[in-house]
Every structure is written in C-alpha cells, then in structure tokens.
C-alpha cells in the first residue's frame, strides 16, 4: 500500500503541533494551544482563568438564549434622543441607557445581546457544517488512505489555496438574495452560514484527517481489521470515539475563528441584513461614527474580544483535559 502523504514539515514542527498539520487554517489554533510544560502544572482542577472563561461563555450564551424574554429595548427601535450618545461620545452620555445608543438611536445593550444571539448562532452552525463535511472527508482520507487519501488531500489543498476570506466573500455574493434576477437566492443569514461553513471544511478536514491517520495506526484498529470487521464498524466503534474528544477543543477554537470571520465579512459588506444586529455588523456600520461616537464600534468589539478569548481559553483547557494522546507516550 503506498505511503500516506507526508505532511511536508516533519520533525520539530510536528512535535510542536502535536501531530496536527500546520497549514493556513490551523496556524492560529496551533498558537492557542499551550505546550506540555504548562499542562503539567495545571493537572489538578481548572484554573481561575478557565472558570472565568466558562462564566463569560455561560453569560453570553445565556443572554443570547434568553434574549426574547428579557426586558430589553427593541433592538430595532430608534430613539432619537440617544442617537450617537454614550460612553466616550462627543455628544455626551445617554440618559437611561448605560451603554448608549447607536447611530440611529437604538439601545446598544439590547443590540449587543441580540447581536450575540445571531453571531453565536451563525458561528456555531457554520462550524457544525464544517465538521460534518470536513470531518467526513478527513475520516475517509485518514482511514482508507491510498487513492482515497490522495483525492481527499488534493481536494482540501485546492480549497486551502484560496484565502478563506476571499472565498467566503465570493460565496456570500453568489448565494445571497437577489430579488429581481432569475435565480432566487438565499436569505443573507443562510448565505453567510453556508459560506463560513464551506471555508471551514478544508481546515477541519485536514485536522480530522491527521487525527484519524494517527488513530488508525493503533494496534486495536489493526487488530479489529485482522478480525475481519467491516470498515464502517471500525470507524464507528474504534476510530471515531477517539477522534471526537480531540475535536472538542478544535470545535471551540473554530467557533472563535468563525466569530472573527463574521466580523471581517461584515466590514466587507457580506454579513447579514444590516438592521439585524450582529457584533460584526455593528462594527462595520458603526465605523463611520468612529470619531464622534466610538462606543458604537468599541462595545461590540470588546464583546468579540472577550468571547474569543474565553473560547480560546476553554478550548485549550478542554484539550489538555481530554486529549490523552500526549500524556507521556
């Protein structure tokens, strides 16, 4: 059987990334993961930082889920008096609205919470899509190797050669609602989710593939094969249960990446319909007020920052707790 495609960076880099491939998609994820020396230290329980992160995520997710029932202002209702007023704004602060009003006078607090709802939904579903399709490809390539792997690897490489932002932007443009032209087109939110999901596929595919490759070489898998077990069974019972936990941390990190990607696309005008708030949207449109009402931009920016930070932290902690592969092997 021909050798599986070597990642072109054997040796130390592979060690540094614990066997995961370093490529354009995974560099940031690799950087998030802490090295062995720190893990040895935090073996007992979760640290303070980890609990803080869990708390933040719980808060944001909780608010997002509860948004419809919380006593918030309507995020789409303009109140002229608070327009462009808020902390740090030229026009002064807004009475009765702690976080101020945006450029159209809509309450920032409510928009941040509703925005979180949309942003998190988009990011999570996109990552799920990436996992399902990318994961499937990676599993097949990593397990079957040979010609299957050659095709899968080629496919993933081809998609990776086009920078994700540009690919996502092109996809959103194609998929979006185009009333008036012959093809219908999709709702902007759906288009965004599909586009982000699509660019997540090669990244998650490569990681799954690497993980599957290493797990498929284990003795118990070889043993199962020797016993004549069917491929499907082996994948389901031997490989998948071991690959999945390793993927949990990747899932968290990917959601963080997707949140940032939504922001980037929003600046380029490719996010959801503009009066539906998302953190990225709010930054993108609020930009014109940067000089006189910076809070419109910096409040959602801080939300993104803290949420991504918390997700990175959690992702790292999850990996160090559940990913047993490195433990002394």
């Amino acid at each position, binding site marked *: 059987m021909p050798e599986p495609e070597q990642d072109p960076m054997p040796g130390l880099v592979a060690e540094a990334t614990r066997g995961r491939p370093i490529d354009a998609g995974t560099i940031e994820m690799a950087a998030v993961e802490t090295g062995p020396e720190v893990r040895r230290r935090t073996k007992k329980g979760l640290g303070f930082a980890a609990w803080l992160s869990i708390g933040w995520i719980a808060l944001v997710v909780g608010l997002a889920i509860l948004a419809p029932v919380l006593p918030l202002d309507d995020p*789409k*209702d*303009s109140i*002229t008096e608070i*327009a462009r007023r808020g902390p740090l704004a030229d026009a002064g602060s807004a009475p009765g609205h702690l976080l101020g009003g945006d*450029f*159209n*006078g809509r309450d920032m607090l409510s928009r941040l919470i509703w925005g979180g709802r949309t942003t998190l939904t988009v990011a999570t579903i996109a990552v799920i899509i990436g996992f399902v399709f990318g994961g499937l490809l990676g599993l097949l390539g990593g397990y079957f190797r040979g010609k299957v792997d050659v095709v899968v690897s080629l496919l993933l490489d081809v998609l990776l050669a086009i920078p994700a932002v540009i690919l996502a932007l092109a996809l959103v443009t194609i998929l979006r*609602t185009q*009333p*008036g*032209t012959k093809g219908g087109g999709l709702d902007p939110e759906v288009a965004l989710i599909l586009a982000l999901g699509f660019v997540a596929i090669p990244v998650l595919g490569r990681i799954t593939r690497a993980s599957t490759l290493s797990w498929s070489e284990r003795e118990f898998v070889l043993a199962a094969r020797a016993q004549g077990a069917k491929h499907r069974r082996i994948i389901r019972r031997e490989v998948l249960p071991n690959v999945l936990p390793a993927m949990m941390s990747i899932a968290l990190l990917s959601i963080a990446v997707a949140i940032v990607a939504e922001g980037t696309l929003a600046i380029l*005008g490719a996010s959801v*319909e*503009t*009066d539906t708030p998302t953190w990225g949207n709010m930054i*993108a*449109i609020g*930009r*014109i*007020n*940067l*000089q*006189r009402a910076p809070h419109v931009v910096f409040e959602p920016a801080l939300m993104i920052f803290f949420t991504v930070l918390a997700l990175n932290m959690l992702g790292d902690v999850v990996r160090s707790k559940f990913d047993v592969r490195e433990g002394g092997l």
Partner: protein
Amino acid sequence: MVNVSTSPSLRTKLVGAGLALLSATGLLVGIASSASAASAPKPGGSVVYGLEAETGGGWCPPTARLAISGIEVGAAIYDTLMVPNSKNEMVPYLAKSVTPNATFDSWKITLRDGIKFHDGTPLTADAVVQNFDAYRKSTLLGAALKNIATTTATGPLEVTVTTTTPWPQLPWYLYIDGRFLIEAPAQLSASDCSSKLIGTGPFKLESWTVNQSLVATKNPDYWQKDSKGTQLPYLDKITFKPIAEAAQRVNSLQGGAVDLMHTSDGQQIDALQQLKSTLNLTQQPNGRAEVRYYLMNAAKPPLDDLNARKAVAMAIDRDQINQLRNNGVHRVANGPFDTSVIGYLKNPGFPQHNVKAATKLASAYKAAHGGQFNVVLEHTNDPANVAEAELIKEQLGKAGIDATLKQDDQTAFVLAAVGGNFSILLWRQHPGDDPDAQYFWWNTGSILNFGKFNDPTMQGLIDQGRTESNAAKRKQIYEAVNRRFASQVYNVWAYYDQWTVAAKKNVVGVAGPPLPDGGGTPALLLYGRHPLLGISVNK
C-alpha cells in the same frame, strides 16, 4: 516742545496714540497687502481632491454614466458650451453665443475662435457636431436629448440645432448638469475613448490609475485669463482621488492627505462645520439644492396602488430621518423643487407623517391582498445609506408595512433602477436647474423614468412646460407638477441634499472666477459642481 516729564498720563497717552497710529497704519498696510494678495492669486501649486467615487465607466459619451465625481473631473479636462450663473441663467461658455429663433425650434451656436483641444486640433463646428452625435447615441443622455431633430455645421464655427418642438430651455440641455462635455474627435473615435480624455479644459489628463488617482496637469494654452490678465488655471496639477466613505474623506482632509473634498452627507457636513476655523468651507446656498427621495416603483405591486404609496409616505417620519441621519443639517422637502426654483410650493399637499392614517391604509391594502404588504428598500452599500434604510424600515414597520433591506454596489443599483426590478430606491436627483431639465426623469416611457409612472396629466404638464416661454405661465405649470407629485405620491420627498466643498485653509477660489463676457458669477455648487480653474494655493 511737549513737556513729557511732568505728566505721565499725557506721555502714556501720546505713546499710546503713537502706537495706535502706527498699528493703524500697519493694519491698513496689512489689509491693503492682503487685499491685493487676495485679488492676485499666485500661479503654481498642486492639490489633491478627494472625490466621492471612481468613474469606472469612463468619459466616452455613448457609454458614460457620470455622477458628481465624474462631472468634477469633467470640469477640469473639458468645457461645456454653456454654464449656469448664480442668477440661474444659462450663459455661453465654450460657445460665444447661443441664439434661438422666434419659435425656439432652431438654435444657432457660435463657437469661440482659436480654441484648441489638448492634442492641438482646433475646436470646430464639425467637432461639436460629432459630440452631439455621440451623446445622442447614448442610451442615457440620448433620452435627454431626444427632442433634438438635427444638428448641422453651418459654418466653420457655427452649429445649427433644430428641435422637434419649441424648446426654450434647450440651453440647459447643452449642459445637463455638467455632463455635456465637448470632447476632441480623437477621443470620440478612439477605441479606448472611455479613458483617453482630450478636451479644451484648463487641465490635461496626465494619468489615470482606476480606483487610485487621476492626475491632470495645467493646460498652458487655455483660452481664459483672469481679470488681471494672468493665464488660467492657477494650479499646475490636480490629483483626483476617489474615497468612497464621507467620514474617510473628512479624515483625509484633516490629516492632510487631500487638500479638497466634497460631501453632501449631513453628519459629515456637521462635523466639518465644527472644524470651520481650520478649513475653508464653501457651502451650497439654500434655493437650488437637489432632493433626496425614495423612488417608488409605480408599475409593480404593491406600490402600483395609490393608497399603498400614500401609506408608505405617511409612515415615514422625515423629520426623524433628517434629525438622526443629518443632525438636522438639511431641510425636509415636500416636492422636487427647492425654494428658488419655479414651481416651488411651501405646501403642495404632500402627505405628512401620520402613523395612524398610514396603518389604516396599510391594513386596508393587506385586507385586499391576502394580508401581505411587502416592500424592498434598495440602497447602495455606503454606510450612511445603510443607516438611513434601516431607519426607514423601522418606521414602515410601525405602520404594519414589511420592509426588507437590499444592499447593492453601484452597478447593481443602477441596473435595478433601469430594469425596473425594485420596489423602493433610495435616490437623489433634481438639482435646481430649470424644471424642464427634469423632463426626461418624468417622461412616460423614458428609460430614466425608473418608477415607470404613466400619468397623462403629468405628461401634459411637462410637455406644456417645455414649449412654454412665458415665465408666469411656466410657474403655474410647474406648481401644478408639484401638486401632482404630492397627490399621486410617486416619490417620497425626504430632504434637500446640499453640497459642501471643504478645503485646507490655504486653498482658495473654489467658487470660480467671473464668467467670460460678463456672464456673471458661476452658480455656486449647483449639483455639487464647481469650476477648478480659479483654485489657487496660498503660501
């Protein structure tokens, strides 16, 4: 001899008087010198002009789609046959005279002698006729110039234009807000006509890198001199830079990256006014501003129904929009004409903001149409437009009208307008020219009548206004047009969109020098356009 030692108060007074005299003299000298300095701009220098957009489509008459940015570049490189002055009269510019016959259906255009295009070829009647032909071939401007029957060179410097109907306002169509640029035959016949700009204007094209900059250098043989006999233009070079976002343009001006910029964005104008002391602001006066309005598609449901249009108009709170979007800088409009345009009425009967009435009409519409009343608010992706559209959507929602937002780039936006594939467009037009200059926007069947309204009353009125030459009668006609728009609600008039040109403190002369042959002073920022030949940089 004055005994200065005895009385300090007297001595002080004398000294004080002496000083006062000295300073007064100094002041007078200063005023005199600065006055003379102001009246004698020094040639030389170069400026960078921050424009609203790039003119990707170029300047070839059959395909050009010039907006203010393209028109401003046109003002540098070309001349028009006539220009409007501050009294709103069309006066000859590149032409020496434009004379109609008694029935206004035959016009004699006499050109100035000795004018050359930038490539050295002379300005002749033949060249002008070629320009007419090219513009009439354009789908866009051709629609505007439809009323022209023939154009012939009846002399080396004389062109005769005949029209199918009496057309007293033809002079406005020799300008078309600065779009009727007289281009050299070498450009008109070139395969790269869109980018090979050759005109008679004060500046010559040096280079054009799309989306980056267009550089124009002084035309040393320009046909105008200033009142002191100094060759115009003063500047050696102008670099036009497209900077799409108004906030960024203001930033660039503050940071020194550009020397001049223009904008009609209310919030940015407010910001500029706060910086007044550090800049030279030239603002379009009230009276002839263009109008920001929401163009409704009267050919497609739901807005083919008059009550539906009324509901939309009454649901929209134009005061709130003006406050939130423009910081109150602009004025709310109730019709297509600004206060100095004939046909202006303070109260033409346009439906005012009334949520209750709007909701009632909307529910009635929904009851008759399966509970649906959906509109699409289409706009370009400028953040200011996006914010405005969001506000309108919210206001419509309060009356029970479901609005969706649709963001377009400039190309798709124009396509939607032309193709009639829209519901409501956020548009801006109708600068304060003579109302007949708006004819092709409202003419039934015109490609530019995007709302596609087919209104015999309106048609009759604008046809009358076109051929009528009596001023009092025309006033009545266009007031009737105004009232018709109010009662039929084809458009929701929002606010008058006035232009401001902001320049660094040492950049002067935006308004332009007096027009040749006693034509008066140029109209100030009509449609945002201003001449460039009078701009100079003080050291």
